[in-house]
């Protein structure tokens, strides 16, 4: 069995990679994908903790994270499609007005 700190360190590294993508990319497809990477890293940490203490709670929380990721992605992708239809771009910085420019 693996030492629990190995998967915890991997979860940290993956979370930081997702955070890096979230901060550096402008394309909203990549922003949503970075959020998914971060949620996935959180799920890995839950699984590692479940293994560390030998309880099913980690996997139960992983299922909850999976639900959250699905619901978040559905709404996020619809918003992305609406933004593309309205501004004809995927640049997140373009959507900086609360209503259409006069």
């Amino acid at each position, binding site marked *: 069995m693996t030492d629990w700190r190995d998967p915890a360190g991997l979860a940290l590294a993956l979370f930081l990679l997702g955070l890096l993508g979230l901060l550096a990319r402008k394309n909203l497809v990549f922003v949503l994908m970075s959020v998914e*990477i971060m949620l*996935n890293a959180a799920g890995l940490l839950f699984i590692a903790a479940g293994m560390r203490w030998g309880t*099913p709670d980690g996997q139960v929380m*992983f299922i909850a994270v999976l639900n959250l990721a699905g619901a978040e992605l559905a709404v996020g992708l*619809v918003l992305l499609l609406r933004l593309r239809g309205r501004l004809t771009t995927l640049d997140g910085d373009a959507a900086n007005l609360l209503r259409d420019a006069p």
Partner: protein
Amino acid sequence: MMFWAPAAIALITTALAITRANPVHALLWFVLSLLAMAVIFFGLGAAFAAALEVIVYAGAIVVLFLFVVMMLSLDRAAALREKMFIARPVWTVPVMFVAVLGGAIGMAMFRENLPVMAGRAVPPYDVALKLFTGDLPLVELASFLLLAGLVAAFHLGREAEK
């Protein structure tokens, strides 16, 4: 070996996924990363979570992404513009922040002399028992969340009435 090889693959493919200019290439790297994660889950004794990782994440979520990317019908000009965004020195500040944050958490995690205990595998039977007896409110909450996501996506996705 059950851990380090897929861990290396997951890290490399995730790094590739967030640096690609083409969203389809990035999503394919991301699928590979998720499959490596499924192997890691299996190695950690969480077989049910490994199956869910393949079925729900790699099978449903990334395919949803791919459908949307197809609907966006990206052209060559968009790809070139994206390449310019990446080439700019936009990475320096995020790399700095992330390095500081990672250094802090990593030091807290590895410097301290935390007790180490071998874990044990958690079979799907235990997960199902816990999920549908003690954690039943969580199932209800998940159904609320999915319904809310469905209603919101349906509402936002409709064309605006003239």
